[in-house]
């Protein structure tokens, strides 16, 4: 079972004797090289494609970048690593001109620059491939690539020239796209290639990739890495933002680590390993595996039989899926985003219509039941988008804690709310699940992400008025920091140990690996196979996530070695 390359979303453990400090490694240059100065006294950064010195950026509630130094040599593939909230995105947005630094200087190829907006950055050869694609859905690939830098014929748009240029570019860099297709009609992998083409079209020499592999299978990730290698051989410089350590080891040459707004380390990739990087990211020794006992599943609690569910466009997103969940086990669904998991979750929780097939909960027929009926029958749901689905930001915490049970006793009787009862219950819950601050009157929107999620989990796990027997958990730790992730994972394990059946959906493969007792791999609405974490490697799961059936994948084992 490969342990290296696991990202930070795992339980961390304090080792006796280690303080929770910020170990500082070398900061300037790589491996201790010092920076020379020109005769005039100004520093000479001409070896560096990007030199950011002493960058400070503050927001009303946080110092996002606290005196950050960041240096990238020309032609280098450089990783910028840190967990959520470390400040990496903020730093790069200043490099791209979306933000301006409060203090500090930026040098591009040795020349000092002041970016007033993205256009200045683009003019300086900088391009950013965003984590959440910046594409116009109902326009074509070609239109998206040229937007803002359109070729002209007089006052008109020269669309033919645009198509030609985009085609040439895509062939040169091995980025296959369908030029005339609309963005809303092409798959995610191609959409990312459009993002890359966008910046190459504008002559980017320095490319910033912000968490590009979140939406890719391991195989697609490898394809992306090939593109990066091709770009490097064309003289481009690449900055790669990620929290996935195996990727850092696979493709990068130099690593800068950030934590809580500061740089905590800068090493050459060949001189380090994932454990060391993880420590720099988190400030304490990281245990790479969750502690849990073996599961003891008992009776069947949830059965899904040959389920077919449509997506928003009326096409099948879930195609004939069958699965079982037993009390006391965690069934994990692995898969890249957009393969039908969202629709599956919505169908199983009453938020989407089932076209064909059955859902049976604790022996009761629940196909197309309403969310209220599911809850009353013992199935609760921790939604993947807590802001959109899981809570009402403008409501206080105590209102949110009864969402979904608000018309039941003891919270309401004959349509009248019992505010005393509700507040007592809320105080207890907030204490038990460690939601901070302990202020139930606070508007939920003002809580931090981690505390919002704890609030949602508290509500869904609580036994008033009905004890849940099955909990559907989707993306439970998205956007959370290590402390919150730790807590949520521990809570999920303890739920399982109390005899609750858990259906876990996550795009983080490592979370699936560490929590699940059984793993089902989803691809284009179908299950490619069921495996246990012990019996497969990440690569094999990756193949299944890309559409290969289990038998095929495991069958090849004999050949490869």
């Amino acid at each position, binding site marked *: 079972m490969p342990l290296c390359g696991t990202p930070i979303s795992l339980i961390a453990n304090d080792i006796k004797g280690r303080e929770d400090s910020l170990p500082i490694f070398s900061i300037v240059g790589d491996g201790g090289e010092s920076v020379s100065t020109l005769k005039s006294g100004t520093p000479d950064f001409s070896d560096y494609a990007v030199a950011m010195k002493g960058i400070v950026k503050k927001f009303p509630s946080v110092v996002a970048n606290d005196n950050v130094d960041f240096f990238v040599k020309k032609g280098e593939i450089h990783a910028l690593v840190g967990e959520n909230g470390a400040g990496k995105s903020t730093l790069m947005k200043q490099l791209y001109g979306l933000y301006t630094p409060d203090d500090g200087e930026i040098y591009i190829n040795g020349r000092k620059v002041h970016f007033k907006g993205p256009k200045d950055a683009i003019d300086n050869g900088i391009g950013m491939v965003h984590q959440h694609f910046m594409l*116009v859905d109902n326009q074509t690939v070609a*239109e998206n690539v040229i937007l803002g830098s359109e070729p002209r014929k007089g006052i008109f748009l020269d669309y033919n020239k645009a198509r030609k240029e985009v085609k040439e570019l895509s062939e040169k860099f091995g980025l296959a796209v369908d030029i005339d297709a609309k963005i809303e009609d092409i798959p995610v992998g191609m959409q990312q290639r459009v993002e890359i083409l966008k910046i190459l079209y504008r002559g980017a020499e320095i490319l910033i990739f912000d968490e590009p592999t979140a939406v890719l299978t391991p195989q697609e990730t490898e394809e992306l890495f090939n593109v990066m290698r091709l770009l490097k051989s064309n003289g481009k410089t690449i900055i790669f933002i990620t929290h996935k350590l195996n990727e850092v080891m696979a493709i990068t040459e130099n690593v800068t680590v950030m934590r809580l707004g500061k740089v905590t380390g800068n090493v050459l990739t060949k001189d380090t390993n994932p454990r060391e990087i993880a420590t720099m990211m988190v400030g304490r020794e990281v245990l790479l595996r969750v502690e849990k006992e073996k599961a003891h599943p008992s009776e069947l609690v949830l059965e899904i039989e040959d389920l077919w569910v449509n997506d928003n466009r009326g096409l099948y997103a879930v195609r004939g899926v069958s699965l079982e969940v037993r009390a006391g086990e965690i069934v994990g669904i692995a898969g890249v985003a957009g393969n039908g998991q969202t629709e599956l979750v919505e169908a199983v929780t009453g938020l989407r219509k089932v076209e064909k097939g059955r859902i049976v909960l604790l022996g009761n027929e629940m196909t197309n039941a309403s969310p209220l009926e599911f809850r009353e029958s013992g199935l609760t749901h921790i939604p993947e988008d807590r802001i959109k689905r899981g809570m009402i930001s403008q409501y206080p915490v105590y209102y949110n804690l009864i969402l979904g049970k608000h018309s039941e006793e003891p919270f309401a009787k004959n349509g009248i709310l019992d505010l005393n009862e509700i507040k007592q219950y809320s105080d207890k819950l907030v204490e038990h699940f460690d939601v901070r601050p302990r202020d139930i009157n606070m508007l939920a929107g003002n809580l931090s992400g981690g505390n919002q999620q704890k609030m949602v989990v508290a509500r869904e796990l609580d036994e008033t008025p009905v004890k849940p027997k099955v909990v559907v958990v989707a993306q439970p730790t998205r956007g959370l920091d290590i402390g919150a992730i730790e807590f949520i994972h521990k809570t999920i394990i303890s739920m399982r140990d109390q005899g609750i059946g858990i259906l876990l959906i996550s795009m983080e493969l490592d979370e699936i690996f560490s929590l699940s007792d059984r793993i089902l791999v989803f691809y284009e609405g179908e299950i490619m196979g069921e495996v246990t974490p012990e019996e497969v490697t990440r690569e094999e799961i990756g193949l299944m996530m890309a559409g290969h059936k289990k038998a095929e994948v495991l069958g090849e084992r004999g050949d490869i070695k």
Partner: protein
Amino acid sequence: MSWIEAIFSILVNPLFYKLMLLSATPLIFASLGGVYSESTGVTNIALEGIMLMGAFVSIVFTQITGNPWIGVLAAVIIGLGFSWLHAWASIRWSANQIVSATALIIIAQGITSFLMKPFFGHEGQTDFIGKVSDLHIPFLEKIPFVGDIFGELSPFVYIALALVAVSWFLMYKTPLGLRMRAVGENPEAADTLGINVYKTRYFGVLMSGVLASLGGAFLSVGELGRFVENMIHGRGFIALAAMILGNWNPAGAMWAALLFGAAEAMNLQLQSSSIVSVSATIKPLFNMLPFVVTLIVVGGFIGKTRAPAADGVPYEKE
């Protein structure tokens, strides 16, 4: 039977088609304006109010200068100024665009009614002040049927149709149009490519102001020659329905406006028909029809046509 006879005789009368064009003209202007604004992502339901301001201001300046074209120019300027308020509130201050627009409609109604007595001496409506003369096209006049429609027609009609063509080219064949539509769909994407979202949106809203104001000016200085309090009478909202029905496309909005114009023309012809009689009491029920049709259109076609994705959502950089 007589109703079918009446409708048929109306349809073969060139006057019906002329009336259709004239009824559609203010709607074409205003719905085109709506397209500009909403394509960049700012809803503008204040068209009704801007039209009213345009109608009023054009008559005022025709009175002052004696030249109706100066009145038209004044309408353009007031359209810019009045819509600038909505643009400023919506873009700079991220106001609730529906409420802001509603406020402007109320202000327009208040100002135009308020100024009637001080300016014209009495409430209700003005005397005949002056109008833009119709365009005579001599060789057209001689052609049967077509000549009766186009021979003598307000230049506003031609201006409206020309603007539709120009707008279509602008939106689909120029870089500006591509950027406008991108800003209305995904302003963040446009921003990251260096496009100024705010400037683009100001352009969209100000254009909607100019066009709506011209639509109002047509009603006063282009057709009637006088100003009547609240003379827009719901057309600003019917124009919105035309924009929706036309799928936020200049050509589509024009066709939808023509459809509404046809309905209005039919209504008018029936009321003055010699074949069927429409008593004064029933008249209000007839006049109700354009609004019922709009209601059906708005209810039936939303969802079948596609609004710009970022329509109505204020854009704020993080």
